[in-house]
């Protein structure tokens, strides 16, 4: 099992390297000259050349890529000029490892930008995740138990309605009515646990989390419902009943356990995707998360930031896949490598 995890991690890193190269090539081989963008409004040919040199844009793309990779491991300086380091250290921007690049547009290392935005997106993803998993399984099982009745149709139908609404609609609706008009919850604003404690943190995340959860829940309700219903037809469920087990135990221990595998698969991918930022929800609730950062940097043609975020998102997805595969082994003994 341990060897398996190591193997998966190594292949994950390789995949990430390939991802980084592709992203790098796509952006830096584009029609936009990163040096021109980084140079700013009052740009002269000389200044542009200097900027290009400082950020390493004068080198061939592949070399830029290797510099980028080395930077992630060792950190790097902009400009990487030992002579200048001695004469004028103040003009050098140091980007400590893991260095994802330097955004001249925002005059900040990408790592710092991400570091500020990531906790917000992570918190949001986590809260939404817990909400939709709880809601999805509870409503899914409830629908399965009352298959074909009005309860079943009501649950599945309502969940589809929320799935069909775009998140900006649900988000704005909740914002406008629940927070502003009815004042059920305070106006959502992000406050880290360190700043305001867990309760304030949760309070601020409730509405945006709910917005996302309502959207994602539909799939989980349907999935739970389908797999619980499927398990009802399984022979082992008949065995469980024939043993004289109480209905609750049959449901929880035998039926829901069987529905766990597909749910974990879906949850892993969805959660990883959300960690990279929920663009629309963050914009609606004005959270400065990764999603918002990604949109801003693409709008400003801030290529280093965009590349950094894309890579991070890729890393999350790859990691989530590994975690899901390892979880399989814990859920299903048949998967355990002998």
């Amino acid at each position, binding site marked *: 099992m341990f060897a398996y995890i190591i193997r998966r991690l190594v292949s994950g890193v390789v995949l990430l390297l390939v991802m980084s190269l592709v992203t790098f090539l796509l952006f830096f081989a584009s029609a936009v000259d990163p040096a021109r963008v980084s140079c700013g409004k009052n740009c002269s040919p000389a200044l542009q050349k200097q900027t290009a040199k400082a950020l390493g844009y004068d080198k061939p793309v592949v070399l830029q890529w290797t510099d980028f990779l080395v930077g992630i491991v060792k950190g790097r300086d902009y400009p990487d000029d030992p002579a200048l380091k001695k004469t004028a250290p103040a003009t050098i921007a140091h980007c400590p490892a893991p260095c994802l690049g330097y955004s001249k547009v925002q005059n900040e290392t990408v790592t710092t930008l991400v570091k500020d935005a990531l906790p917000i997106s992570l918190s949001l993803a986590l809260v939404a995740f817990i909400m939709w998993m709880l809601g999805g399984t509870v409503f899914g099982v409830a629908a399965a138990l009352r298959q074909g009745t009005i309860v079943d149709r009501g649950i599945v139908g309502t969940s589809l309605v929320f799935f069909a609404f775009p998140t900006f609609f649900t988000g704005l609706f909740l914002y406008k009515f629940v927070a502003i008009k009815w004042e059920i919850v305070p106006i959502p604003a992000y406050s880290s646990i360190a700043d305001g404690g867990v309760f304030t943190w949760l309070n601020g995340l409730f509405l945006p989390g709910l917005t996302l959860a309502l959207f994602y829940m539909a799939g989980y309700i349907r999935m739970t419902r389908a797999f619980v219903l499927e398990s009802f037809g*399984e022979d082992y469920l008949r*065995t469980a009943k024939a*043993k*004289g087990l109480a209905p609750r135990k049959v449901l929880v221990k035998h039926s829901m356990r069987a529905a766990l595998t597909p749910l974990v698969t879906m949850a892993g991918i969805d959660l990883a995707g959300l960690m990279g930022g929920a663009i629309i929800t963050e914009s609606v609730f004005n959270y400065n998360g990764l999603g918002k950062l990604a949109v801003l940097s693409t709008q400003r043609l801030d290529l280093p930031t965009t590349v950094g975020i894309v890579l991070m998102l890729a890393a999350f997805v790859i990691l989530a896949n590994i975690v899901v595969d390892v979880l399989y082994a814990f859920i299903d*003994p*048949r998967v355990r490598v002998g």
Partner: protein
Amino acid sequence: MTTTASAASSPPTSSSTVLSVRDLRVHFPTSDGVVKAVDGLDFDIARGKTLGIVGESGSGKSVSSSAILALHNPKRSKVSGQIWLNGTDLLTLGEEEMRKRRGREVAMIFQDPLSAMHPYYTVGNQIMEAYLVHNAVDKKTARARAVEMLDRVGIPQPDRRVDDYPHQFSGGMRQRAMIAMGLINDPGLLIADEPTTALDVTVQAQILDLLQDLQREFDSAVIIITHDLGVVAEMADDVLVMYAGRGVEYGPCREILTHPEMPYTWGLLSSVPDVKGDTDARLIPIPGNPPSLLDPPPGCPFNPRCVHRDKVPGDLCRTQLPLLVEGNRGPGHTKRCHLANPEQIYETEVLPVIAPSLAEER
């Protein structure tokens, strides 16, 4: 429209009787109409005895045994009649009362032991579960009991195998484990639903031997559901032949196998290959298919497939359902057939074809 024989509706009088089924009907309402999977079934089984229920697929064997455990979804099925188990009519019990009897007074072994066990839990866990639900003991005791049962059913190194998962067991071992699970609460009645169908022939014999040994040891009644007359011959004291949801012939095993009086039973016997038998014996399949239970043929449900139909005067077979009554062989052997002289037809027309050597002996 249906008439049943032996409309006895009182509880069994004999003290050794474990299970008495009276006029059992299991109907499934569907959008196409009512599927009468079991339509008027009667049988008794005494402590320590084995009843073999034989019939083709869809004859209602498994449906009736599931009804004994009340495993049918009450929303989708209608079960009526009487099922007397140890003096209680199970059909009058509430769900919770019934649940307490499942696994404790009546246990069931299923056809495919791989799918009948939950793939995510260890064999031991699943056997312990059966014990824990009916006995107020701690897990350690239950585990010891599970190991003891695994040992009893012939699993080597039971203290280690108890922690294995079903997929780590072979087919025969899985069925042994299922038997251990079924017998762990020492039930008075064990229903084995085609317990050997999914197994190798060599393993089949072992499992049957094991079942017989355990039956002697636990002195429980066993219902063995099968389409294999070889299994019946080996195991059963009594035989009930089922066709289209009804019993068509019922009696002591030896009697049914040597002097069958119903053409359907003849058909079953004709389609059994005999390894030891002479090579002149022919295998004769029963023509046609089992009837639709949604819209069974009028009269005797077997009449469209019956080759002896013309020997009955008039249109009786097509118009009137024969009763399950005693034939010429005396009490204890009942059959559902209009034929007046079944014994003679069997001796002269059926036996010489399927077992020439036997026919000569007589």
